[in-house]
């Protein structure tokens, strides 16, 4: 029974993992990845790693929701309405993937793996809880602090550079002259779906200078070294 469930879950995990890069719709790709993660969580449950399995399922469900959101935000073709080719160095990638699989498989098969399976009836969940809040508390808490630092880093990276920089996003500043054009940041009209990185970055570097009025540039901020 366990074997059947394991092989079914493994097949589903690998198949959905492969589908991730084969479907046109990005949302479907996201859900395929979620299915793959849930299958791995199920395999962990079969191996009586209850905590890991259930935590994987929960965490990945949330993560894939976030990922789907970002897909819709950033992909040119989130719904997959028209087929598209979004790969580069395709042959090399296939070769690398197959080489990694074969290499790892050969390494696994060639290794004389130890065999000390889990004793039946051991309360792994209780043991893990005692371990997490006992001897290995430092590791567990280090992971927690790492996640906190990640949150801070993500906010820093994804926010505007700060009050001396581009913090005026979305705001429409008043004109420098009454009825004049709004001062400050020019809205990018070119829009960006791919393929023209160099030009658009050059354009964006020019955004600091007010073009339509000759009043002195009185806005606070725009420190020169942040214009790069």
């Amino acid at each position: 029974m366990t074997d059947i469930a394991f092989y079914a879950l493994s097949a589903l995990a690998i198949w959905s993992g492969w589908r991730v890069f084969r479907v046109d719709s990005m949302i479907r790709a996201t859900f395929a990845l979620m299915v793959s993660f849930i299958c791995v969580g199920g395999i962990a449950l079969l191996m009586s790693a209850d905590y890991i399995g259930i935590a994987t399922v929960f965490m990945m469900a949330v993560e894939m929701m976030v990922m789907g959101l970002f897909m819709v935000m950033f992909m040119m073709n989130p719904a997959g309405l028209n087929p598209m080719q979004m790969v580069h160095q395709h042959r090399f990638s296939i070769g690398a993937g197959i080489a990694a699989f074969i290499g790892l498989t050969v390494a696994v098969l060639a290794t004389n793996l130890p065999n000390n399976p889990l004793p039946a009836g051991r309360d792994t969940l209780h043991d893990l809880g005692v371990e997490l809040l006992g001897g290995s508390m430092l590791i567990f808490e280090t992971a927690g602090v790492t996640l906190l630092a990640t949150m801070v880093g993500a906010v820093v990276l994804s926010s505007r550079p700060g009050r001396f920089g581009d913090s005026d996003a979305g705001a429409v500043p008043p004109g420098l002259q009454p009825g004049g054009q709004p001062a400050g940041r020019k809205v990018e009209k070119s829009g960006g779906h791919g393929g023209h990185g160099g030009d658009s970055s050059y354009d964006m570097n020019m955004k600091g200078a007010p073009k339509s009025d000759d009043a002195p540039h009185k806005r606070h901020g725009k420190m020169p070294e942040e214009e790069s």
Partner: protein
Amino acid sequence: MTLTAILVVAAALFGIGLFGALSQKSFVMLMMGLELMLNGTLLAAVGFWAFTLEGAPKGQLLAILVMAVMAVELAIGFALVVAVYRKRQADVVESLGTLKQ
């Protein structure tokens, strides 16, 4: 269900993830490849714990660390995607030929 079978499945997931991470143009799809590689790593870690450690609970800490790495990768990765998109309007790898300009 043997350790060998689990490691082979993990290797397959890793290989697919490596293919995705190398071949996809979009940043978000690239990160899905990385996630799939970490998925295989997590499976291998849990497999090693279940079959070689006689249930010593310290073995699961590696899996917990892998999960923390997944969360960190996702958060920082998306923050980087947002930052790069704001700076250069770029959402595919080819747009970033150089580090500056």
